[in-house]
């Protein structure tokens, strides 16, 4: 059994199709391991080599990675949830009820999505504070810190726009209260709120706008900045790792 699995895997790896996709042999040498990273669009974000110290849990608590993985999990569950969601009043609320009561595993997906969203906001904050206290914002990482701040804002907006979608009392009043903060801005505040909500009150237009922002605009922006963020980590010399003489004069 064990050998047959291995053998069939090996046979698969020997096919032209496999090779055309992965363009490398088994990752047994450093060269082929490098190719594995280089040759893959998504892994290309990562450097070929990392410092051993940066792999330790205490170096980062994997906060950035987990935030990213949460983003992926949110994307997957979010796309699945979209199959049962109509951004309309009051159908949106009925869809929540159907997810809860009728759709197979619907309530589970919604729970995971909601939980992951809260966790992501929490972890992104934590990630930021952790990076700060480790001095990770210092040159040459300044720009990546700024990208990180943008990603923090995007995360907040993603969570905030998603908050309205169930169209229940919690959602409605949280967005009403939240959007009124915007109108406190001088001169442009009420106009901005008007544009964001597509009206003067949180209504059908607001739901549709928040939906589009939540499922298209903000995720694309986040994906783009996450790419920049990863890529800059690599370009700025990897994770900040304390050397022996850090903090000691």
């Amino acid at each position: 059994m064990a050998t047959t699995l291995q053998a069939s895997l090996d046979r698969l790896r020997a096919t032209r199709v496999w090779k055309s996709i992965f363009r490398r042999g088994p990752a047994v040498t450093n060269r082929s391991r490098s190719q594995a990273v280089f040759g893959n669009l998504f892994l290309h974000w990562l450097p070929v080599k990392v410092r051993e110290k940066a792999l330790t849990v205490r170096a980062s608590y994997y906060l950035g990675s987990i935030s990213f993985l949460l983003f992926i999990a949110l994307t997957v569950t979010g796309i699945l949830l979209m199959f049962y969601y109509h951004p309309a009043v009051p159908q949106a609320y009925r869809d929540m009820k159907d997810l809860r009561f009728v759709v197979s595993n619907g309530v589970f997906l919604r729970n995971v999505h909601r939980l992951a969203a809260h966790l992501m906001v929490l972890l992104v904050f934590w990630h930021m504070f952790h990076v700060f206290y480790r001095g990770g914002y210092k040159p040459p990482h300044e720009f990546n810190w700024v990208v990180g701040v943008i990603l923090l804002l995007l995360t907040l907006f993603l969570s905030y726009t998603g908050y309205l979608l169930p169209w229940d009392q919690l959602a409605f009043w949280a967005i009403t209260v939240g959007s009124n903060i915007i109108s406190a801005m001088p001169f442009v505040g009420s106009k901005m709120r008007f544009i964001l909500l597509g009206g003067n009150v949180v209504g059908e237009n607001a739901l549709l706008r928040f939906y589009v922002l939540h499922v298209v605009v903000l995720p694309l922006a986040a994906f783009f900045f996450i790419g920049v963020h990863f890529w800059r980590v690599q370009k700025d010399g990897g994770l900040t790792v304390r050397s022996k003489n850090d903090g000691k004069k």
Partner: protein
Amino acid sequence: MAPEEMGKVTYRMRLIFAASSLLFVAVLAVSPVKDLLREWKHYKRGYLQFARTRPDTKRLTADYRPDLDQIWIPEMNVVDRCASCHQGITQATLADGSVPQPYRAHPPIPHRVREWGCTPCHRGQGVATEVAEAHETTLAWEQPILPGRYVQGACGSCHHDARPELPKLNRGRQLLADHNCAGCHRLQDIERSVMQGPDLTSVGTKVSREWIYKWLKEPRTVVDDSGNVKVNGYETQESPRMPQFRLSEQELHDLSAYLSAQRSHPVAPYKFSGAVVAKWGKRPDVTDQGELRFRQMFCSTCHSLAVTRAGETKLIGGEIGPELTKVGSKVNPDWLAAWLLNPQGYLAHSKMPRYEWSEEDLFTVTRYIETKLTDSDLLSNVPQLGAATKEEIAHGKKTFSEKGCASCHAVGSSGTQKDFGPDLSALGSKNVSQLEFGKSTIPRNLSSYIQAKITDPSSVNSAARMPQYNFNAADLEAITTALLSMTGPPATSALQKLTIPRGNPQFQPAGEFARIYERYQCADCHKFNGYGGDLAPDLSYEGSRAQRQWIISFLKNPQTLRPTLTFRMPQFNMSEREAAVLADYLSMVMQSPDVRQEAVNAKELTPAQAALGKQLYEVKYQCQSCHTIGSGGGYVGPNLNNAGNWLKPEWIAAWLSNPQALVPGTIEPHRTMTDGEIKALTAYLMTLRQSGGKAAQKQVAAHGAKAGGNGVAGQ
């Protein structure tokens, strides 16, 4: 480090990865497993097992599918999945009470479950597929299942008319109307009645300050803790109108001061002529004579008196007007005579008819009331209050408006105060989170809240101004049902179309008839085109039924058609002209479209037909089991001795062919008679005439008076 060592994964990492992969698979499997074990699937399987234990398994499982059962009625906004668990809901053989829930069938009702769904009547969360979520109040759903004992309230959300199948709802609505709840609250379908409580503009001329004090402290009609209604200490069925307010001693002083000072438009004291006073003033039998007139005029049809029989005291008499046992100790004599002469002169909306009094009658009856209908103990517990001070009056005025007295009582030109209490017209659809429970520990649901609010308003809100009502358990349930039915306008236009409005009958006569109709307050007892009281026959079709001459003689000398009745038409001492105006109006206007005048021509009826009719009456249809002719027969239906003078032949014909078409709900059996038989019976009945003439009428009048006296005393 050797370059190739950079890529070697340690055994420990492999182990960790393998373990975490296994955990990953195991944990991921939990949700699908949980999904397999959902509650509704459990009940689905349970139904199959249950059906196998029944003799008609095949029929019970014919429609069975393992999926969710959903009733979707888009136009009513109904998505009900109740039948997913309640699978036997339409299976007639599962209607038995021994069938376990959720599989029991629904008792037969006029609505089909597929066309109406479940939640429009029972509430609850129709989309839910879990027991707790579907039935109970949750964070996401605050309209729980309506407890079975209030389910008529759900009927009332659409059926605003009074349906005989809904006794509890009707009783509740009646109680709400009777207790003047609409005086303070806006209620769906219950408008503020014209007469809420008496106009108090001149109440100081009617009663003393001490009496007001006593009344405010203990309203005449008191319901004790066990729900028994007592009037002046006597049990009765009457609904109390004036509730008991929780008033402090100071408030009692102030209010009685304020009210006793209300003497804006006093009625002029009536001065009896010297001749009458001289004739009757000294006679020892003046009160006896007064009592006799009191009975002959059938005051008892509207007013009750306490009568002691076999050691037990009961109130006997009608409930339209107040109970009068102790009224002589209550009102000023000056006021009493003026009131009897012209009630509307003191209280414009009074239901009391304006009798045509002879001076002698008025004198004797007032003397009877002043001396016999008294109670020396009435004011025994009341402190000496003395004259009202300015300060007390000012405080009393403030208390009067703070307690909401002005909701029911007008003082001076200020009129009544509208909507003193909260709007209750959509109370039935209120969410629990919208209710204030205060410190009370009652269950957090709407019906408990309503009941607590009615039984003890201060239990849920210590600052409640609402007076205290003591209802017995059944009435409390009925009122709760009626309040739960008030759910405001339906949410969807489709439901609005299905709503059955309350009939809102109005009868607005005009001209001379209207004046007499108002004077004698005919609508207190009779119905006209759906409007009016229930005590006496509906007169909407009287013109098609009775002959004009008979109406006139009846009005002048009311006698009873149905000797078993306690309440009879009072003797108004109507003039010939007034009786004629009423009879003309009734004959011409109050006609039934179902009675066609050309159907029977009285002149063509032959004695042969009458003979056949007599035969049919006595043998074939056995009418005498209910009706009396001569001295024999039953007392269920009206006495037919004078049918030939009383009824119109076309009415008799129409009545015999289909009584329920003319008077819905009448107990007269609907028989299938041939046209010939109908004609024969009509001919026979038209031959039944009592000899006319003054003598007979007088005899009848005397008989009526005597019977009336017996009726009151004997019931």
